[in-house]
């Protein structure tokens, strides 16, 4: 890769790393407006992370190195995945054919260490959360890969950067319905993978219903800060994929940022207007999303 390209894309990564916690601020503000409350400050997530980083960590005697390694590995996976992501005009720092599979792999590795760290505590509640996370992500991952496969097939590009620039600049004729279906499927995956409302409630603190939150219960201090920050980066990553699928990503930094802000508001609206699904109904939602992406794939396959 030319050196001229590296610095601007590194700038995109730095921007994403700085702006990722802001997404949850926008989501919370939207929810507050819907509920008629004033809500927490937009920058609350930054304050939380700084506060947590200043604290000490407490480790239970039942935990091993797996528990301590978990947060670091999750954060590294999220940061590496960020390098694979095209943002704005810039191609990704690392762009190669098939990098979307690498991205899915990094996200899976991140989830794996979140779950093993939760299991390592020996708490039955954390085990429950880990088992739910495993069950639902097993359903979400095929949908994620299928949707990206549809985009690859539609654009003929095998790297995320190629897909983003072709979707923005040379969209295939008559590909509108396919793109809408794929974006919808990706959006459902985003909600499911990031512990958002129809699947998991980020505000709940009842162990019997939590999924993501319950796995971080025994982490404290800097460890919790890393887990929260990694989760925010993950939300950013999936959000960029949705924005790119709509063709907004390749039109410059402002279009990309505007798309992300609109997405955060949309997530806030979904959270304010929908109730969490019963756990038994979640597979139905994921299979519905899978049906959408399969339909999109079939439609791209029969294109003349």
């Amino acid at each position: 890769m030319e050196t001229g390209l590296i610095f601007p894309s590194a700038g995109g990564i730095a921007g994403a790393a700085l702006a990722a916690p802001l997404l949850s601020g926008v989501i919370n503000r939207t929810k507050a407006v819907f509920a008629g409350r004033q809500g927490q400050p937009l920058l609350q997530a930054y304050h939380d992370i700084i506060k947590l980083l200043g604290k000490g960590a407490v480790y239970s005697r039942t935990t091993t190195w797996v528990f301590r390694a978990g947060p670091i590995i999750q954060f590294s996976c999220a940061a590496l995945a960020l390098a694979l992501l095209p943002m704005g005009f810039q191609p990704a720092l690392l762009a190669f054919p098939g990098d979307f599979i690498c991205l899915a792999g990094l996200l899976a590795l991140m989830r794996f260490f979140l779950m093993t760290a939760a299991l390592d505590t020996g708490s039955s509640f954390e085990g429950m959360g880990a088992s739910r996370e495993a069950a639902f992500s097993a359903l979400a991952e095929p949908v994620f890969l299928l949707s990206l496969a549809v985009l690859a097939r539609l654009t003929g590009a095998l790297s995320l950067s190629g897909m983003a620039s072709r979707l923005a600049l040379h969209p295939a004729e008559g590909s509108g319905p396919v793109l809408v279906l794929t974006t919808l499927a990706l959006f459902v995956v985003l909600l499911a993978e990031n512990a958002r409302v129809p699947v998991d409630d980020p505000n709940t603190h009842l162990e019997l219903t939590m999924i993501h939150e319950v796995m971080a219960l025994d982490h404290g201090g800097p460890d919790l800060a890393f887990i929260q920050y990694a989760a925010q980066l993950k939300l950013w990553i999936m959000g960029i994929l949705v924005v790119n699928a709509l063709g907004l990503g390749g039109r410059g930094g402002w279009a990309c940022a505007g798309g992300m802000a609109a997405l955060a508001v949309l997530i806030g609206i979904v959270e304010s207007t929908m109730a969490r699904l019963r756990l038994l109904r979640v597979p139905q939602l994921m299979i519905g999303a899978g049906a959408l992406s399969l339909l999109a794939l079939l439609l791209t396959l029969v294109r003349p």
Partner: protein
Amino acid sequence: MSAWSELILILVILTNLLLVGGNRLTGLIRFAAVQGLLAGLLPLLVHSHAITARLIFLAALAVALKGVAFPLLLGRALREADIRREVEPFVGSELSTFLGISLLAFSFWLSEWLGIAQAGWLRLMLPVGFFTMMTGLFLIISRHKALTQVLGYLVMENGIFLLGVALVGEVPFIVELGVLLDAFVAVFVMGIAIHHINREFNHMDVHLMARLKE
């Protein structure tokens, strides 16, 4: 024009998937109504270069019957029977959605294999017609409630209608009128039948009626 008919066909596919995956009966009636509406509007888009009074009349009749009259009749039958959802269908909702997508793939393959799939809007029209017919059949064989089976019959009629538009183009006026009238009478009679079945047996689970043979 072709973009609009493509959009309508994709929406028909989505209503099929919703019909197969859903289990709330009011929702199912609504999806079937939307599908009838879409199918009724399609001939107007397909023949948009030569819209005649006859075409408009038939489309209006189809929309009025399938989009308004049938849902009202079936909704009334549902209210009288006082049931809400399809409990424990023979094939569960998740498996049904998956089978629905498989049926769609099969329909694409079938129209390819038959060698009558053509370029342009026909490329989607024929498979969607097959898919809608198969969805109707699937609903009829995989659900307990008489009402869902009536919906399956209606969906199948929509599928035959789509196939007709795809293959024949212009069906004679009197034939189309006759089909619509038949469908209307059938839904009317079935609505009454559902009512009577429900009053007689306090349920409308079709599989429980196998006992009546003895």
